[in-house]
């Protein structure tokens, strides 16, 4: 499963090579060119994420989401979700654990939604492609939208 993308890419590359070698070489050149162009951003994101994650370890996250309830807790959860860049396969089991330990569904809803939709760490890269205005508005709207998600998630889990 982890290597699914590599397998798909290799198969596609194989078919392409079999059909047209020149086009395949061209595709690889383009792939490298694009990669090289965003490499500085990727490296920056990598270092930034490491730092942010070191400061917001699971204990800190659970303190913010777990203990405080209500809107303040939801706001805190949304902010943490926006700032961090944890792969879902790590974050979701952590959330399940937090719920078992008494965290509210509303807060977890805000955290999961902003974690996936809002990217403060990846902002420089989004800005590079879409400009400051669109990157700001998209993230802002996604942030606000996450509160609606949190509210409804909290509501359906009531009782």
């Amino acid at each position: 499963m982890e290597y699914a993308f590599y397998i798909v890419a290799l198969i596609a590359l194989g078919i392409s090579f079999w059909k047209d070698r020149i086009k395949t070489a061209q595709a690889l050149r383009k792939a490298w060119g694009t990669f090289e162009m965003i490499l500085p951003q990727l490296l920056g994101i990598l270092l930034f994420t490491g730092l942010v994650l070191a400061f917001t370890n699971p204990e800190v996250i659970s303190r913010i989401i777990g203990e405080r309830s209500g809107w303040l807790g939801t706001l805190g959860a949304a902010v943490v979700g926006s700032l961090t860049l944890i792969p879902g396969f790590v974050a979701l089991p952590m959330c399940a654990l937090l719920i078992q330990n008494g965290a509210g569904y509303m807060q977890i809803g805000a955290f999961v939604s902003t974690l996936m939709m809002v990217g403060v760490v990846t902002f420089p890269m989004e800005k590079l492609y879409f400009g400051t205005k669109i990157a700001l508005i998209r993230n802002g709207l996604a942030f606000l939208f996450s509160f609606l998600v949190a509210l409804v998630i909290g509501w359906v889990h009531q009782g």
Partner: protein
Amino acid sequence: MVKQYLIKYKFFLLMIILWIGVYIGKPVLSIRSVELTVLNLRQMILVIPPIFVLLGLLDVWVPRQTMVRFLGEGSGVRGIVLSFVAGAVAAGPLYGAFPVAAVFLKKQATFRNVFIFIGAWSTIKVPMFLFEWQSLGWKFALTRLCLNIPGILLIAWVLDTLLKPEDRRWIRQQADDLSLR
């Protein structure tokens, strides 16, 4: 030449300075940062190279007319559905979506469809949905999915409406500059 590289890598350099600061201030945290960065690097290596190879192939093999027909002006509801599907079958973190979006834009997909694609990639990926169902329950996962579909449409519509013609030109130009080489 050197200046050019400094500008290109300014974000990265800033991060290195920040890292040095943290290392001096809180050495314990910097060790954790290194560990976490190695973990993230691994994830990046698993996802990024194949995405770029697929992008290169997409760029070379899919003609502009095909893209216009499926995701361009007049692609209508089918274009919207296709944008959702394209984003939902993806894997990997959100930053992988931007270069893909750029190739779509370069081939004249509409902005609305590209924003839908980014929204779908960010939050309704199929493997992640199944995993969410498993770890947080069907109520949680289904509620989020049902809200996200109209939410993504709404956000895409607002963004598309707010884009001025000069913004559109700039973004398409940027998409061209960032993917062509």
